[in-house]
C-alpha cells in the first residue's frame, strides 16, 4: 500500500529510523561506537547508516569505551550531538568515570556554562545465557546520579519516539535497549512523531492492582495481566518508559485507584528502581494502600550461566503472578 499511514516494524528498525531521521535533520548528530559502521552494528541497529552518512558521522572505534565515551562528551561540550553505542551496557562500566564524573556533572558543576547533549545507547540486562559479566541491568546504578536521564522503552513505538526526543535533549541521556526485544514487531506511524521523556504509559487500565514494569519486563507483565484477567483479577499495567525523571503522578493516581501495587524489574532487589518507587508511593499513598507494596526483582546473585538457574533468578511470569495474587488476596 503506497498510502499506508502505519508500518510494521521491529524495535531494531525503529531505533535505526530514529537515528536516521535525526541524522538527516541535524548535521551535528553523529554515531560512534564499536562495530557501528563497517560491521553495520553488533546487533545491526546501525545497518546502512555508514553508507548513507559516511565515515565522519558513523565512527567505528577501537575497544576503548572509557575514552570514546569521553571523546563524545568533549565533542558534546564543543558543539556536536553524539550518539554513543555501547555494544552492551555491561561495557559502560569501563566508561563509568566519564559517564559519572563528566557527563552527569558538567552542566551543574560549570554553573550552567557547558551542557552535555549526548545519548548513550545499547542493550541492557540479560540476554540468553551470556553469564554474569554480560547480563547486568545498569539502570539502578546510573539512575542514582543527578544530571542523567534514564530511558528504557519496551516496544517499537516508544523506542523510536523516545530516542528522537533523547537526541534533541540537551542533557546526557542513557537509553537502555534490550537484546531480547530487538526483533519484536509493532505497528507504528509512518509519519514522524516524538514521545516525551518523563511520561509513563498505562498499557492496560484495570481496577484491582497496579502492576509497574519497564523494558523487557513489560512483556512478561502483559502475559501476567492476561492470565489474571482469566482469574477475574483486573490489572492496571504501567510501562515506566522513562526511569529518570520518574512519572510519579501517573503511578500515584493509579495506586490511589487500585489500592494495591506490584513492582517488577529485571535488576536486583537491593537499592533497585522499584525500591525507589515503593518508597515514593508509600509516602504519597500511605492511606490508600490496602497491602504492602510487592516487589519482584532479580535475585541477589551474579547471573548464572545455566539456563535453569538463569530462568530462576530473572523475574518470571510465575513469580510475578504469585506476587499479584498475594497482593490482591490480602487486599
Amino acid at each position, binding site marked *: 500500500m503506497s498510502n499506508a499511514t502505519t508500518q510494521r516494524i521491529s524495535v531494531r528498525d525503529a531505533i535505526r529510523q530514529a537515528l536516521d531521521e535525526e541524522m538527516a535533520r541535524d548535521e551535528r548528530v553523529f554515531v560512534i561506537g564499536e562495530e557501528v559502521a563497517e560491521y553495520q552494528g553488533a546487533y545491526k541497529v546501525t545497518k546502512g547508516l555508514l553508507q548513507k552518512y559516511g565515515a565522519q558521522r558513523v565512527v567505528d572505534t577501537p575497544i576503548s569505551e572509557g575514552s570514546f565515551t569521553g571523546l563524545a562528551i568533549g565533542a558534546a561540550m564543543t558543539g556536536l550531538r553524539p550518539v554513543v553505542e555501547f555494544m552492551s551496557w555491561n561495557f559502560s562500566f569501563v566508561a563509568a568515570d*566519564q559517564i559519572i564524573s563528566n557527563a552527569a556533572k558538567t552542566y551543574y558543576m560549570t554553573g550552567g556554562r557547558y551542557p552535555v547533549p549526548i545519548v548513550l545507547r545499547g542493550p541492557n540486562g540479560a540476554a540468553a545465557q551470556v553469564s554474569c559479566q554480560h547480563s547486568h541491568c545498569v539502570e539502578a546504578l546510573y539512575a542514582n546520579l543527578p544530571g542523567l536521564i534514564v530511558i528504557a522503552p519496551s516496544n517499537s513505538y516508544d523506542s523510536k519516539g523516545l530516542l528522537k526526543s533523547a537526541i534533541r535533549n540537551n542533557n546526557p541521556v542513557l537509553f537502555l535497549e534490550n537484546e531480547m526485544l530487538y526483533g519484536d514487531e509493532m505497528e507504528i506511524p509512518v509519519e514522524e512523531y516524538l514521545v516525551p521523556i518523563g511520561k509513563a504509559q498505562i498499557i492496560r487500565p484495570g481496577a484491582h492492582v497496579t502492576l509497574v514494569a519497564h523494558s523487557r519486563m513489560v512483556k512478561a507483565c502483559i502475559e501476567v495481566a492476561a492470565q489474571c484477567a482469566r482469574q477475574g483479577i483486573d490489572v492496571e499495567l504501567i510501562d515506566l518508559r522513562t526511569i529518570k525523571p520518574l512519572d510519579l503522578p501517573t503511578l500515584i493516581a493509579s495506586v490511589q485507584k487500585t489500592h494495591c501495587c506490584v513492582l517488577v524489574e529485571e535488576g536486583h532487589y537491593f537499592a533497585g528502581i522499584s525500591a525507589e518507587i515503593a518508597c515514593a508511593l508509600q509516602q504519597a499513598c500511605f492511606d490508600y494502600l490496602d497491602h504492602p507494596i510487592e516487589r519482584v526483582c532479580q535475585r541477589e546473585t551474579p547471573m548464572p550461566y545455566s539456563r535453569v538457574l538463569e530462568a530462576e533468578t530473572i523475574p518470571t511470569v510465575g513469580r510475578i503472578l504469585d506476587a499479584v495474587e498475594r497482593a490482591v488476596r490480602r487486599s
Partner: protein
Amino acid sequence: MVAQLGSEPLRASLRQMLAIRHFEIRGEAAYQQGKAGGFFHAYIGQEAIATAAVAAMGPDNWWVTSYRCHGYALLLGATARECMAELYGRATGNAKGRGGSMHLYTDKLLGGMGIVGGQIPVGVGAGFAIKYFNQREKVSVCVMGDGAVAQGTFHESLNMAALWNLPVVFVIENNLWGMGTAVERAVSVPNLAETKAPSFGMEGFVFDGSDFFNCYAGFHHVHQRVLETQRPVLVECLAERFRGHSISDPATYRSKEHLQRLEARDPIFLFKDQLIAEGLLTQSEFEAMDKEERERVLDAMRFADESPWPDPATLEQGVYAP
C-alpha cells in the same frame, strides 16, 4: 626571539605569570584562613608552561586541563575576582560556587577536571569537533600531569587521536610527582614524551617548563606542526612543582636543600632576569608590576569576601539543561 616577540607581549607574559603566582599564594592564604575549602592544587613553579602555551598558540583554541587549573582559567579569560570568588564558594564565582578550586572554566576552557586522566578523552573530543567542523585554524590543547600517563585514558586517547588525525596538542606537565609518588616509581620508562609518542606514531617534544622562552619557542613550533599536518603531538614540559600535591600535602618527601635548588630556577625570576638582561625591563618596573598584580589579587579577595553566598533556594536549579 626577543626581537620577534617584542617588548610589550613579553612584559605582558611576565605580568600574567605574576598574576598566577599571586593568585596561588593568596589562594593558599585564604584556604589557611578558612575562607576557601576543599582541595587546592597550586601551580606555583609551573607558570611558564601555561603562559607560554597560551601566548604561543593563542587563546582561541579548545583547552582542557586537570584540577591544577587556576593558571589556565586566568590566562583564558577568567578574572582574578571570579576565580577567587569561586574558591570562596560565592554566587559570583566562576562556576557560581558549584565547582571550587578544581573546576574553573571559560568559553575556551572546558575544565578544570577532577579525576586524573579524565580530561584527556574530553580534549580529544574537542579535537574531533574541530575536525568535524573543519576549523583548520584551531587546535585542542589537552593538558595533564605526569601522573595521568599511567592512566588507561592516556593510552586510549592518544591512540584514537593519532588513528583519526585529530589536531590535538597533548601536554604533559611533568612536575615529577604524582602526589607523593615520584614519576620514576609510577611510569616504567623515563622521558615520557620521547618514549610514549613514537608508540602512537606521533612526534614527541620536551621543553624546559621553567624557561618561558624555551616553552614559547616549543609551543610555537608544535602549533605550526599540528596546523600543517593535522596530526596530534605529545609535549612534555619539565618543571618540578614547588609546593606539595595539594594544600594538605607538606611535601616532606623532599629535602629543604632540594627545594632551595628548585627555587633557584623559579620561572618568574628566570624570565625577569632574561628581560632585564635584554634591556626590556628594569628591576623597579618589575617590582611595580609585582605590586600591581599583588594588589589585583588582594582586590579579588575583598570582592570574594563581600560577595553573596549562593542562595540555598537555587540549590536544585540547573541540574539539567533546558
